[in-house]
């Protein structure tokens, strides 16, 4: 079911792109990632707006007073919270629903890239079974050209220079840097330095780039390329929406506070 509805169409689209860009799998991965990001962009906008609304609520003096007033009565606080949502026009699911919809799409993107990078006979057999025979010509597509710049996209990437006895994992380094930069740039502001969410976010900002870097170091470089492009597009999308705090990149700088709290009363 998952294969038939999601993975197979994705594979056919990526192979179609591959066939029209001169059989360059690297370009196909980049274009396919851009395409999926564009399709899911409206969902991302909704998610960011929803998250912003919830963030603004936490900083709203009116809500703080309500929290203080009913701190001993959880049931009443919950009722007041629902009332507040209604008054301010906040949908508490506005941030998580688009995320839930995006999530399987991103997983499918990842899985379809893996499937399309078939580098062994069993993988090619599986790939052939996913291709719509009326849409794409298997005999013309296979073998897939997995060379992109200096990389074999089906293998972990290393750049070998004549004066070095070891290969440099350029993509893995770029994935670490871009993951770190992205997480810092989109890190939400927190007024309370002891806020557990903020502390967890800071921890993730440190560990996640290394984890992604490890994956990029050991997995096929086609996936590393996807990680890198995805990170760069994520930064670009946040920047277009004005949600990037470039100052967060400066050492010792705490995440920016929001410029203004703009929760309008529903009339």
């Amino acid at each position: 079911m998952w294969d038939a509805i999601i993975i197979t169409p994705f594979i056919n689209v990526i192979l179609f792109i591959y066939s029209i860009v001169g059989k360059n799998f690297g370009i196909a991965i980049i274009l396919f990632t851009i395409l999926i990001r564009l399709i899911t962009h409206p969902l991302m906008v909704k998610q960011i707006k929803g998250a912003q609304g919830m963030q603004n609520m936490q900083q709203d003096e009116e809500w703080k007073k309500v929290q203080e007033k009913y701190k001993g009565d959880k049931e009443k606080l919950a009722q007041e919270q629902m009332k507040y949502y209604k008054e301010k026009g906040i949908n508490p699911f506005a941030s998580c629903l688009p995320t839930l919809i995006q999530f399987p799409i991103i997983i499918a993107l990842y899985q379809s890239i893996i499937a399309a990078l078939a580098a062994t006979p069993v993988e090619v057999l599986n790939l052939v079974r996913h291709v719509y025979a009326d849409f794409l010509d298997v005999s013309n597509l296979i073998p897939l050209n997995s060379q992109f710049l200096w990389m074999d996209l089906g293998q972990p990437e290393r750049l070998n220079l004549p004066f070095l006895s070891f290969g440099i994992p350029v993509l893995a380094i770029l994935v670490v840097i871009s993951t770190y930069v992205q997480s810092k740039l989109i890190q939400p502001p927190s007024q309370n330095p002891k806020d557990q969410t903020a502390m967890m976010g800071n921890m993730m900002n440190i560990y996640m780039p290394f984890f992604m870097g490890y994956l990029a170091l050991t997995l096929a470089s086609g996936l590393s390329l996807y990680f890198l492009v995805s990170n760069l597009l994520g930064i670009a999308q946040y920047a277009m929406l004005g949600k990037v705090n470039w100052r967060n990149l400066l050492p010792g700088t705490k995440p920016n506070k929001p410029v203004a709290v703009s929760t309008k009363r529903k009339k």
Partner: protein
Amino acid sequence: MFVMLTLSLSACSGMLNASGWPGISGDENSVYVAYANQVYALRLKDGSLNWRYPEKVEAARTYYANPAINGLNVIVGDYKNTLSALNIQSGTVTWTFEGATNRYIGGALVVGDTILAPNADHNLYALDLNGNLKWKFTAKHALWSTPIVHEDVVYLSSMDHYLYAINIKSGQLIWELDMEGAIVYSPSFDTDTIFVATLANEVVAVNALNGAIIWKNKSEVGLWSQPVYDNGVVYYGDTAGKIFAVSAINGNAIWDYMMGEMVSGAPAVMPDGVVFAGENGKLIALDFNGNILWTRSITGKLYTGPVIVDGLLVLGISQGEEVIKAYDFNGNEIWKFTPEK
């Protein structure tokens, strides 16, 4: 979301692991099996383990290429770019060849004093019996199948759609032929004719002397099997499960049989018939007129046909309870082998 995504990605990363089917070869004493992280030497009489290599597995190093045998050594390539010669008695490493830059998917072949080792880095490496490079031939894309040799000519099929004829002494190209489809399996040979199945869904007979096409049979569905020649007849099967016996001279149909599941790998020719393997575990023996001799059902996937080793049909199984099962020519199970975990 990022955490969830990352965890999912790491969980999915198993999909990237090299995957294949057991590579099998043997002699009058032993069966040699390359599968997953180890190479096994099994006693032919009962399938018991003689030795395995390496003793301590290395997660990223996997073996699927058919081992080659030269009397002293078992020569096997791995998915980490290394070709190893293992002492046939003890399984200890005699030498290694590290000159390739990609996986060994197709098995090596020993001809006289030359080892021919195809690699996914597009090169066919010719080594002497000590593992020293004699020459290499570069194809246009990955080499996944074992070459065949006849009278000092190497016939090499490639994923690049080409069939090559190469001089075994010098590595020089004699002729090449565009088959219009990638070739996963090895060719088969009869006097002066080569038979090849391609991913363009064709079985093609080629003149071995000059590379001219003699005949080609187009299949309506995919072909994931190796055509095998015997006594004037070429046997192969398609992904819809149909088995074909065609004339080696002109490709005309002699008989066909509907097996019902994808026919995988090369059929094995016995004294009184031919055995075909189906992807979903069906093993069927037909006589030379297409009548059923016997069938067996195996738990697991069969991506390769049975290999005949000194009167036994040795079957490699993927995703099953056992990795190897051995049958006599009447379909009686003689022994089975499951590696220790």
